[in-house]
């Protein structure tokens, strides 16, 4: 284990065969933990992060110095109570926070892999993270949870390892990326590719990096995380530090300024090639396809208790797509609960202070823990 730059890393010795056919060896998984593992090792929750998340779930992220991405939900006395549970989160492979990804240096060339990095899938991500169970000597997780791409990993994990989690919480996600999801991801990738600094992925940290392309990708994606109503209420047509429009292309409107800011801070913490690889993994995600079109078969072998949560204003992974998972589970008599939370905060609702969501999450976990 390395703890360089506050990043804990597990070097996975066991070779991992990827869906693309390549095999990776001796690769790092960067992870973080919160709370403590009890003696029976039955209080562990594996949390999976979304597209641009990382292993720093809560508290201050030591790299970005900002709050962890799920600070509202995870921490002492919070929905995922770290006084009670041992929370583990790993940076996905393909990521850029210490795990094996395109910015990782190839030992043979001494340079970053860039687009020579193998294409990875959601399946590869969870197979890589499974090594953490062995590392901590955990036979069975109390729960697995995650929103968005984190939810996709939750579904894939329980499908791959049906007896390794007691409870399963996919949030605001889908079992199969829709055409609209793929379209938005492609928009982001093309924005990066259109930046002349991208150089087919062969930029290095010493060069000028494709900041502009990555910022545009983030701006476009950010819109998909919010709802029309939420945007209208927060920004409307309010002007940015000016009395009237300026008849030019500066950020006249607050929403423009907000998006530009979101883009600019994102490039400081995220790698453009990672963005390409991870969005590709999401697009390739189709759990039903792995089971000849029958989604129910993905869950046939598990006795786990599912709790699926969606949000009314989430148009990126709308309620119906979450419900399709519920339907697949009900059709095989699985133990599944479902609630759609009222919120006008869009897809991002799962990351924000949405009390109905946080209460439901806490109640489900705590009641299930007593019964387990």
């Amino acid at each position, binding site marked *: 284990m390395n703890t360089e730059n506050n990043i804990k890393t597990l070097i996975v010795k066991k070779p991992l065969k990827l869906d693309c056919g390549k095999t990776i060896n001796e690769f790092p998984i960067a992870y973080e933990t919160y709370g403590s593992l009890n003696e029976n090792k039955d209080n562990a929750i594996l949390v999976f992060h979304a597209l641009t998340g990382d292993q720093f779930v809560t508290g201050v992220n030591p790299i970005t110095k900002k709050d962890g991405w799920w600070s509202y939900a995870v921490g002492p006395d919070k929905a995922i109570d770290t006084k009670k549970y041992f929370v583990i989160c790993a940076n996905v492979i393909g990521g850029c926070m210490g795990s094996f990804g395109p910015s990782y240096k190839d030992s043979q060339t001494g340079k970053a892999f860039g687009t020579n990095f193998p294409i990875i899938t959601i399946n590869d991500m969870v197979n890589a993270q499974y090594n953490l169970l062995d590392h901590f000597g955990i036979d069975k997780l109390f729960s697995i949870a995650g929103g968005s791409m984190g939810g996709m990993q939750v579904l894939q994990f329980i499908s791959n390892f049906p007896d390794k989690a007691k409870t399963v919480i996919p949030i605001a996600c889908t079992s199969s990326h829709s055409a609209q999801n793929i379209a938005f991801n492609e928009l982001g990738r093309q924005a990066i590719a259109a930046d002349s600094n991208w150089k087919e992925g062969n930029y290095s940290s010493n060069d000028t990096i494709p900041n502009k392309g990555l910022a545009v990708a983030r701006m476009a994606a950010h819109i998909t995380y919010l709802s029309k109503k939420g945007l209208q209420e927060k920004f409307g047509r309010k002007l940015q530090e000016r009395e009237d429009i300026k008849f030019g292309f500066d950020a006249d409107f607050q929403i423009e300024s907000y998006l530009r800011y979101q883009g600019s801070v994102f490039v400081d913490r995220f790698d453009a090639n990672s963005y390409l690889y991870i969005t590709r993994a999401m697009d390739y995600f189709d759990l039903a396809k792995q089971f000849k079109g029958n989604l129910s078969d993905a869950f046939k072998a598990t006795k786990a*208790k599912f*709790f699926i949560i969606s949000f009314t204003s989430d148009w990126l992974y709308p309620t119906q797509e979450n419900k399709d998972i*519920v*339907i697949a589970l*009900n*059709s*095989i*008599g699985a*133990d*599944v*609960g*479902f*609630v*759609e*939370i*009222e919120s006008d905060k869009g897809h991002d609702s799962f990351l924000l202070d949405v009390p*109905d969501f946080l*209460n*439901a999450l806490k*109640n*489900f976990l705590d*009641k*299930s823990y*007593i*019964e387990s």
Partner: protein
Amino acid sequence: MKNEFQVIAELIEKNKKVLDVGCGDGTLMEFLKNNKNINIRGLEISKNKVQECIAKGLTVIEGNAERDLKQFPDKSFDYVVLSQTLQAFLDPELVLKELLRVGKQAIVTIPNFGYWKIRLHLLLKGTMPITKTLPDEWYNTPNIHMCSIKDFYNFVKSRDIKIFKSLAINNKNASIISDSNLTIKNLFADLGIFLIEK
């Protein structure tokens, strides 16, 4: 727990799998889970009630019986319970069919519009009856397909649905309904409970 739920619970054998359609705050579910070791699931349309169920540790799916029962396979539950909501559906016949498809047996309870207090209310006052089991005004009642015990009894028979047990509830008393006493029970019971099978 209300008398109706006591009677329903008595109809359900131990260690079975039960779906409570329109489970509300989960009172009946909790009782069945704790006292009869029932593997219990709920379907509930109200978000707040779903939250209450989750807080009790119950497995509930937010959904609508008219749309969401179809996801359950045939005979996937030993019993499906529907308490005092059949009359609120746009298509009660369809819901009844679905209950009998999903459950090996169904327990359906109906507020009896043939109850003497209701008849008297309408006869004397000439306004839509309001009682303990039917507390809403005509303009805000969810009940759009009211029926009497007699109506339901005859309807079920006409559809070749087998009645295993039918009970008339009057205050705390439950008594068996039969062909011979139907008219009397229809007058004196404010609630009918039917255990049926197709």
